[in-house]
C-alpha cells in the first residue's frame, strides 16, 4: 500500500482523512486508487493534479513508478506564465 497525502480542501471528500492508503505501483494507480476509494475526489482529480513522489513533482506521466515507502503527495496541477 502507498500512503497518499491530500491537500486540505480535498479531505472532506475522503472522509476527512489527510492520508489515504491505496494499492499502487505507478502514479496512474495512485489516482485510480484514490477515485475508487473516494469517488468524491474524482472531479478534482479530473480537473488536473500533479503527484509528488519523493519530492519529484510528476505533472502528467501516469507510468512513473511509486514504491510502498515513497512519500506521495497530491498537488494541484502546475502551470505557469
Amino acid at each position, binding site marked *: 500500500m502507498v500512503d497518499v*497525502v491530500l*491537500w*486540505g*480542501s*480535498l479531505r472532506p*471528500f475522503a472522509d476527512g482523512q489527510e492520508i489515504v492508503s491505496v494499492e499502487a505501483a505507478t502514479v496512474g494507480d495512485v489516482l485510480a486508487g484514490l477515485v475508487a476509494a473516494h469517488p*468524491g475526489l474524482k*472531479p*478534482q482529480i479530473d*480537473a488536473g493534479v500533479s503527484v*509528488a513522489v*519523493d*519530492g*519529484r*513533482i*510528476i*505533472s*502528467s*506521466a501516469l507510468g*512513473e513508478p511509486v514504491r510502498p515507502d515513497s*512519500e506521495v*503527495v*497530491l*498537488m*494541484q496541477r*502546475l*502551470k*505557469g*506564465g
Partner: protein
Amino acid sequence: MALDDAATREFKVVGTRPVRPDGVDKVTGRARFGADAYAPGMLHGAILRSPHAHARILRLDTAAAKAAPGVKAVVTRKDFAEGQTGENWNVLENIMADGKVLYDGHAVAAVAATSVFAARDALKRIVVDYEILPHVTDVDEAMTAGAPVIRGGTADNSVPDSMHPNVVRFHENGHGDVAAGFAEADLVLEESFRTEATHQGYIEPHACLAQLGPDGKGELWCCTQGHFVAAKTCASLLGIDASQLRVTASEIGGGFGGKTTVFIEPVALALSRKANRPVKIVMDRTEVFRATGPTSSASMDVKIGMTRDGRITAGEGSFRLQGGAFPGAPMEFTAMCAFAPYNLDNIRASAWDVMCNRPKQAAYRAPGSPMAAFAVESVIDELCNRLGLDPIEVRLKNASREGTRAAFGPRFQRIGLVETLEAAQAHPHYTAPLGPNQGRGVSCGFWFNHAGETAVSLALAEDGTVSLSVGTPDIGGSRASMCQMAAEALGISYDKVRTTVADTATLGYNDVSHGSRVTYASGLATIRAAEDTIEKLCARAAAQWGIDREAVVWEDGCARPSGPNAGDFEPLSLAKIASRMGRTGGPIVGHYEATPEGAGVSFATHLVDAAVDPETGATKVIRYTVVQDAGKAIHPSYVEGQYQGGAAQGIGWALNEEYVYGEDGRLQNPGFLDYRIPVASDLPMIDTVIVEVPNPGHPYGVRGVGETSICPPLAAIANAVSNAAGVRLRELPMSPPRILAALDAAQTDSG
C-alpha cells in the same frame, strides 16, 4: 533522467555568451512579428466589444454591417462550434459573448472587410440592444451577500454551499497546528494586503493571419507562446480536425504568460471560413488592455508568529483572487507559494477563486506567487523590525532546505534558497549606506517551474552543420540556449547549429512556452536528441570501420575507436560522417519526444533600496540586486536578462501599474499614457548574481529562470518603501497618493 555530470563536467559552450541568433533580424526590422504577415486577397478583421461591464444582449442585428462597403463576412457566437466543455468553453465564451456580456471589452461580433477602415466602419452599423445589469469589479465585494451573480452554477465541489455563487473554487493546504504555533510565538502579527490587476505589458499586441477553407483545412500565423495549443483550441472552437490546421508561430514581441491562450485567432479563422479569404486581425493597445488577460487582483490576510530570536512558529494566510468573469484565478499557487521559502512546522493557507466583471485573467510570470510573497514577506519584515532582527539572518534561520517539507506537501529535493540568501548577505549592496528618506527591503520568492510535453528534431546537413527544430516559441532567448546545448552535446561549435521554431505540422505536440519550462524541457530534449544523433553517427563509423558499435565512442565531436580490440582508425568527425551519409544509410536525424518530469523548483532573494519623497509621495528605486538560483546558466546574459526583466516588471507592479475601474465598471486607463509601466529612466541599474545549485532532473543541471524573478520584487520594494517612509504599505501599487495617504494616516495616529 538524472543529472548526468553537471557538477564535475567541464563545459565548453554552455556557460558562454555567444551572440544571439535573432539579434540582427530584430534590430534591422527583418524579424517577422505577428502583424508582418500578408497573403494575397487578404481581408482585415475588426471586433465589436461591449461598452458595459455586465449586460444582457436583447438584440444583435448585423444586417447593416453585412451590407456595408467592402464587408465580406460578419461572425457572431453562432459561427463557432457548439458542445465545448471545460476550459475550451471558457475560452469560447471569452472570445465571443453569447447572450450576456461579462466585462467592458467583451467581444460581441466581428467583421472582415477589404480594409481596416471598412471593417471598423462596419462595426458601427451593428446594432446591439443591451439590458444593463449590476456589476462588480472588486474581489471582496464580489464575495459578499447581495453582490451581482455573474454566472450561477459555476462553482466546483470544493466551494462550501454557504459561499456566494461568484466564489468558484477553494483550495487549502498546510500542516501542523497553527494555533499551537502562534501560542509559542513571542510576537504575532496579522495584517491585510491588496494588489491590483496588472497587465503583462508586452510590446507587441496580439496579431494573426488566418486562412480556413470550406474543406476544413487551414493555416494560421500568429504571435503566441504556444502554437500547438493554439491549433488544438482553435480546431475545437471551429469544429475542425486539429491536424488540418497548421499553425506557425511568428517572432514574438513579449508574452510573459499573456500569450498562452487565444483571443483573436478563432475569430479570424471563423471570418476566413465565412469569407473564404485570408483574414488578418491586429489588436490595438486599447483592446489588449480591455480584452486580454491581466493578472488577478488579490485581497489577502496573513498572520505570522515569531520568537524573539527570529524563529517563525506558525504562518496562516487567506488569499482571495479574482480572475475576471471566468474561473481560473491562480489562487492555489498563491496558497502553495506563500510559505514555500520557509521550513515551518505549522502552516495553513486558504484561497478562493472569485469571479468579477473584468476580463478573463491570463497567466503572468509565476501566476499567483508574487502577491503571496508581497503579503508574507511584508509581515516577516515587520516582525524583524519590531523584534530588532536582521532580515536575512531571520530568513536564513527559517529557510527551506533539501528535505524540508514544503507548505504544499512534498519534501524539497536539492534547492538553492540558502545559497541565494548567503550571496545576498555577502553582496556590497546589503551594507551600502542609506541616505535620508531611504530604506532597504529584502524578500525571498519561490516558483515551481514546469516541464510539459516536448518534441524536438535534430537533422544533420552534408556540410556538417545542424538544424535543430523545436516546438517552443522563443520568448526569452531559447534559440541561443538550444544551439549551445546541441553544440555542447555534439562537441561542435555554437555557430554550426541553427535552431528553428517549427510549425505544428512538423513536430509532435509541444506544450506552451510557459512555466519557465523551455530551457529545461526543450533543452533536455535537445541534449537527448543530440545523443540519439551521436548513436547514429557512431553506428555509421562502426560500419565504415567494420567493428562493433560498442567499440566506438564519441569524443570532442568525433567518433573514435575504443577498447583493446577496436583497431586503429583515424577519428571521424561529425562533418566527415555527414558528408557521406547519403551513401551510408541515408539522412541522419536525432529525435526526442517525451514529457520530462524533473523540472527543479527555484528560489530567489532580492535586495532593494528605495527613496521616498515625503512631500510628494514619489518613490524612486535607487539600488536593486537580484540573486537567483539558475541551476546552470546556459547563456548567462539571457539569464541576467530574465532576472532584470522580472525586477523591472515588479517595479511597475509595485509602484505604478494598476487597472482602474470607474463606477460604471469600465476600464479607465486602457493605454500606456494612463497605465504607467516603468521606462528606462524609472529604473536603476539592476545588478544580478547567478547562483548555480544544479537541478538533479536535468542533464546539465538547468532550472527554469523566467518566472521566479518576479516573485520577490513586490515585497522587496514594499519593504524598502515602508522602511523609507516609516509606515507599512499594504496596498499596491504604492503610487504617490497612496503613500501620502499612508504618511498622513501614520501622522494622525501618532498625533
